[in-house]
């Protein structure tokens, strides 16, 4: 999907360097955005009376070079990667799924239900079933928004946002009521059966096999989106739903399916939090992964492999934040500011890039998101 935007750009002569230049053009805006956000973050740290060098040093040293810190980075990266892949699939089809947060909650609930029941199943059946339960719950939750868009013409942006709040309160109710651990000091569920645990991967840390699940899905998605009929269908609906309809592609059905897939991946992130990390369902267990994912997907410009790197970066920020707060005396909320600003800067840098290339059409065309993404134009069927 990035190809069309490069057509008008200056082409260097030889084949290899041409490709390298293309990649550079694609990677430049996100890198510039992240750089600018880190720079503003440094400014904020100075305002807070701390040294950015000490703070960033502590953050990245902790999260990337220490054993426990890196394990923590992987733990944080896992849900981020999965939800972001979901948001990305939606964007490829022109759908803004802003409901990742709610779908994470529903996914966690789905996995909890399967994990608590079916005690005594062997792990090779129970674990996949529990993961599937999370996917189904998350997928169904997002499919509501997809269905409302296709059948009633409701823009998915607002419905997914509202569904977030409903899901979060619903899960709160579940762990306070039907699934409350008897005698628990704070609202959480009982432990899921051990046969539904996602195995740990680094001894003495919380890192779990969910990361491999995320990486595998990123690779599978790359192949599916770039070289299968379904991937073609998704891109076609995202680029031009009217043309897609003339090509006999069932646009409405594709949108609902994509939303379900997108929510399913977010649900899987919730499953990982329950089955891999806590082994229980907690109230308010997601610290905003669903919103980080939107930033990650936008920075990754439609490319699942880029999502891996961007999710790693965001995971790094989250994992090192506490150590940074302790050693440099900067409130860890500075990373929220940095994350939020990356979205602002990616939008600006892409816009500037388009202007530099003197392309008058809308900025998002094939560069950030498909052209019709999120505009309230009705779905043609």
């Amino acid at each position: 999907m990035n190809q069309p935007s490069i057509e008008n750009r200056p082409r260097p002569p030889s084949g290899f360097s041409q490709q390298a230049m293309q990649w550079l053009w694609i990677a430049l805006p996100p890198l510039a955005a992240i750089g600018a956000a880190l720079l503003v973050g440094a400014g904020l740290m100075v305002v807070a009376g701390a040294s950015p060098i000490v703070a960033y040093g502590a953050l990245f040293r902790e999260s990337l070079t220490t054993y426990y810190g890196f394990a923590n980075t992987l733990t944080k990266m896992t849900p981020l990667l999965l939800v972001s892949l979901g948001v990305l699939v939606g964007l490829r089809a022109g759908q803004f799924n802003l409901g990742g947060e709610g779908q994470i909650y529903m996914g966690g609930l789905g996995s909890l239900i399967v994990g608590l029941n079916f005690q005594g199943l062997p792990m090779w059946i129970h674990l996949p079933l529990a993961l599937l339960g999370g996917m189904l719950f998350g997928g169904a939750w997002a499919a509501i928004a997809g269905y409302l868009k296709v059948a009633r013409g409701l823009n998915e942006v607002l419905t997914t946002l509202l569904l977030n709040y409903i899901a979060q309160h619903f899960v709160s109710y579940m762990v306070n009521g039907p699934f409350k651990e008897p005698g628990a000091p704070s609202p959480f569920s009982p432990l899921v059966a051990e046969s539904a645990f996602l195995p740990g991967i680094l001894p003495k840390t919380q890192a779990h096999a969910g990361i491999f699940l995320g990486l595998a899905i990123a690779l599978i998605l790359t192949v599916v989106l770039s070289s299968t009929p379904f991937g073609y269908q998704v891109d076609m609906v995202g680029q031009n739903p009217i043309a897609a309809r003339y090509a006999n592609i069932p646009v409405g059905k594709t949108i609902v399916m994509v939303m379900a897939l997108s929510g399913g991946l977010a649900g899987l992130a919730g499953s990982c939090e329950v089955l891999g990390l806590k082994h229980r369902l907690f109230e308010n267990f997601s610290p905003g992964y669903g919103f980080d994912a939107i930033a990650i997907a936008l920075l990754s410009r439609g490319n699942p492999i880029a999502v891996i790197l961007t999710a790693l970066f965001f995971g790094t920020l989250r994992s090192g934040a506490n150590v940074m707060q302790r050693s440099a005396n900067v409130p860890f909320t500075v990373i929220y500011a940095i994350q939020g600003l990356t979205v602002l800067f990616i939008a600006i840098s892409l816009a500037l890039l388009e202007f530099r290339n003197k392309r008058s059409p809308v900025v998002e065309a094939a560069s950030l998101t498909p052209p019709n993404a999120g505009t309230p134009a009705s779905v043609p069927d």
Partner: protein
Amino acid sequence: MDAQFTFLQDYVLASIRLTVPLAYAALGGLLSERSGVLNIGLEGMVLTGAFASSAVALMTGNAWYGLIAAIAISSLVGLVHAALCVNLRVNQLVSGLAINLAAAGLTAFCARILFPSGTVALPKINPLPIPLLHSIPVLGALFTQDILVYGLLILIPIGSYLLFHSSWGLALRAVGNYPRAADTAGLSVSWVRYISVILCGALCGIAGAYLALVHVGFFTEGMSAGKGFIALAALILGRWNPVYTALACLLFGATDALQLRIQAFGIDIPYQFLLMLPYVAALLALIGIAGKATPPAALGLPYSKESK
């Protein structure tokens, strides 16, 4: 009898308190969207207003300075949204999202620095009883509100009149519906959109200041809690008409107030279901209105003189 009466009075007053921020934000959204600029950044603008008003009110000890700061800073956020959408022609959804995420992050960071001990009580905007009317036995409470409530009540009819019966309103609607025609007629599409989105920011600033200085009395991270999104739902339910939009806000505000009352009365419904009530109401309202509410024709589409 008396108890029921106080209950009703409390309920009406609580509904008003919860409606006011929604209504200011929704009217701001109305301005922005009538000019053709989609604005899911309402949430971030309200949050910015709440933070700016808290910070300045705390530093100066004067709630009015807080209000002015909220209007100024949120207008600046509006300016950013306008620049991104109008000049840079960024996808308007992405721009709104960027504003929400950046506002959430920046206010969370600055709050930790300014209010290190957590919540700090702020100077409040005090109620302004209307002479004579406030001493009416039961209805008196309705006339003992603060100036922002009266301001809203004045703003709605005036806004409605301006929108539908003034050349200013005509320009706004023309730019939002047929920017090409408006441009041909000599209107500057960019200017109309800039001014609308900046005013939208200002109104959201008032919403945030009301939230922080009147309703809650302190600042907490993420205190806008989806109010911007509910305001957007109200805008759609109110079909981009100021009066209907304000009524839709009243509906959501009253729903929110109801869930608080039910909780207080200890009626046997899990409180989480009550907490989700405003969002469920907004969602159901959207489903109900689906297909009947037509947005401004050019909503979400950047305008360029050169393109066809």
